[in-house]
């Protein structure tokens, strides 16, 4: 096991950040913590990276105890905090060099590890980090967290504030790193990224709702789910919310994801109902549940 967390609880003055959290991450696994802002993800990262003490429970990272052996952990993990935390007045190259030196290594030594990522930002290597775009900043931060070939990599919301293209590139890189036997714990508020992880934990209000592979989590969605669309989105949502048999109504892009509380649901009934609400172009199609649907269902 690369990470093993057992019964961790943590509270600040009068807010409970984490409640009795337990999970394990296997070596070489890409494990995602999925949850909205304020779910306790950052607190958990800080406990695992020895920056905070847990109130209760224990955790082992790379075979070291996070409290007793904090020094060994600090030698063997890479950490990329949620907030951009590099030196803005240093250039890309200087930042990278600095982090290589304080970890007692050089860029050349582990260049193969960061090569794929570094190549993309190398043309700007003399630019100051503060002047980089969001995506480039994250790539640089990832390089800096990787430069000492850590056993476990902690990435706290690495793609928040990054454009969709860069986000995709970023996840491709994580996939490649995983092949190099690096265990990765990554947190994200984006449900679509969850599907790219080996296993995910859905977390909300300091509690883990479910841990499984993305496929099984989706499979366990209890009800058939429908894409509903009509000419007037706003009117559609209002009408669905007012429908007496609705179980859940969530806007999802150009559709509304709808589930019905009855077991013998017939889409035609709904269509008839919506027509009475003066909606036209009504389409109702069965669709596959997404992680977001599952999350919403579990968080209910």
């Amino acid at each position, binding site marked *: 096991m690369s990470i093993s967390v057992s019964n961790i609880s943590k509270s600040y003055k009068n807010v409970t950040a984490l409640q009795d959290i337990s999970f394990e991450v296997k070596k070489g696994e890409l494990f995602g913590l999925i949850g909205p802002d304020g779910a306790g993800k950052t607190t958990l990262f800080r406990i695992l990276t020895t920056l905070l*003490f847990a109130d209760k429970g224990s955790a082992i990272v790379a075979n070291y105890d996070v409290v007793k052996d*904090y020094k060994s952990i*600090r030698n063997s993990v890479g950490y990329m905090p949620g907030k951009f*935390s590099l030196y803005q*007045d*240093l250039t890309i190259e200087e930042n990278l060099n600095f982090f290589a030196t*304080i970890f*007692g290594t050089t860029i050349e030594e582990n260049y193969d590890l960061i090569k794929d990522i570094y190549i993309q930002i190398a043309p700007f290597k003399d630019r100051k980090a503060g002047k980089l775009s969001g995506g480039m900043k994250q790539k640089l931060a990832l390089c800096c967290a990787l430069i000492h070939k850590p056993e476990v990599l902690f990435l706290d919301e690495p793609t928040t504030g990054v454009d969709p293209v860069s986000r995709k590139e970023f996840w491709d890189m994580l996939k490649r790193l995983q092949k190099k036997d690096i265990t990765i714990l990554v947190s994200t508020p984006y449900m679509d990224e969850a599907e790219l992880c080996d296993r995910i934990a859905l977390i909300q209000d300091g509690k883990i709702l479910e841990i499984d592979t993305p496929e099984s989590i989706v499979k366990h969605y209890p009800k058939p789910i429908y894409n509903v669309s009509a000419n007037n989105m706003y009117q559609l949502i209002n009408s669905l919310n007012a429908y007496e048999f609705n179980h859940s109504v969530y806007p999802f892009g150009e559709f509304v994801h709808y589930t019905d509380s009855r077991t013998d649901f017939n889409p035609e009934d709904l269509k008839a109902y919506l027509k009475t609400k003066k909606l036209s172009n009504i389409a109702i199609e069965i669709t596959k549940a997404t992680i977001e649907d599952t999350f919403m269902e579990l968080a209910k």
Partner: protein
Amino acid sequence: MKRFIGFIKKEFYHIFRDKRSLFILFGMPIAQILLFGFAITNEINNVDIAILDHSKDATTKEIIAKIAASEYFSIKQIIEKESDIESIFKKGKVKAVLNFEKDFSKNLIKENKASIQIITDATDPNTANTISNFVNAILQKYQKQLNKKITIVYQIIPESRMIYNTELKSVYMFVPGVMTIILMLVSAMMTSISITREKELGTMEILLVSPLKPIQVIIGKVFPYIFLSIINAIVIVLLSIFIFKMPVQGSLFLLGLESVLFIISALALGILISTVSETQQTAMMISLMGLMLPVILLSGFIFPISSMPFPLQVISNIIPAKWFIIIIKAIMLKGVGLQFVWKETLILLGMTVFFIALSVKKYKIRLE
């Protein structure tokens, strides 16, 4: 060691890329020393005065001529009646009025006694005092001349001599003070700001989750400032020697050692401040209010400690700057060696060790 050097290199990048901190580091010492040396001064030079001469005889003319000849005074106006005194002061044209009584010579010869009134504008008490002293001195000198031939029995002649700063140049007073302020400012404020900046920007989080030991981070942070503070101290001493012709009587080596000691104590204070403040602004406010004000007000730099109320005198003892000013004044102006300032040095050393111990103990290896 390699890690350490890498860290220091990074610190120098920060310092040299931040125009503001560079300005504080090097602009301020020079500006301050020139300001204190030239503009803010207790010396009097060509002070404008007015004369009210009721007798207008040979003696008064001679005295007036002597006063006019001195470099300290220039006679701005001759007034004719008592009522003009008030108005001329109110206009702020002159700092002092010399009022010679009627029949000055006659009285002097007949009764062996004549009087002259020195009226000074005491809105600036220091200058008023100095003016009256200087006028007195000129009169004394003149009196002596008159009495040359006559011998008076039982005469007590007070002869005061100012030593160590014979010319009573205030710049000699200010250089040690300014040096203290600057070293304190650069060392304590800049270190506390540079450490809290890492906290504020979140980079401290990464430094903590790295193999760097706390002591390496602390020393790496303060080392550049030790170096820069020493350069500053050298610049200040050079400026005072070459621009203000201030003699450094004692050993420069000892002066350097004592300065390094003081710099280290200020750096330790800076680290201490950074452990209790979360943002750069707090760090700056604490440094300014908690360090600069006491250094300026309670160290004896501007206000003599002996004339402070007793409680403040007691408080002044815990201010490192007080001891450092005593030490460097002794070395620069009196030219004494360590055997005369060992006690102050020991106190400063004790404080330094205490601050370092406290700041290392308070330095957080985690975020809470």
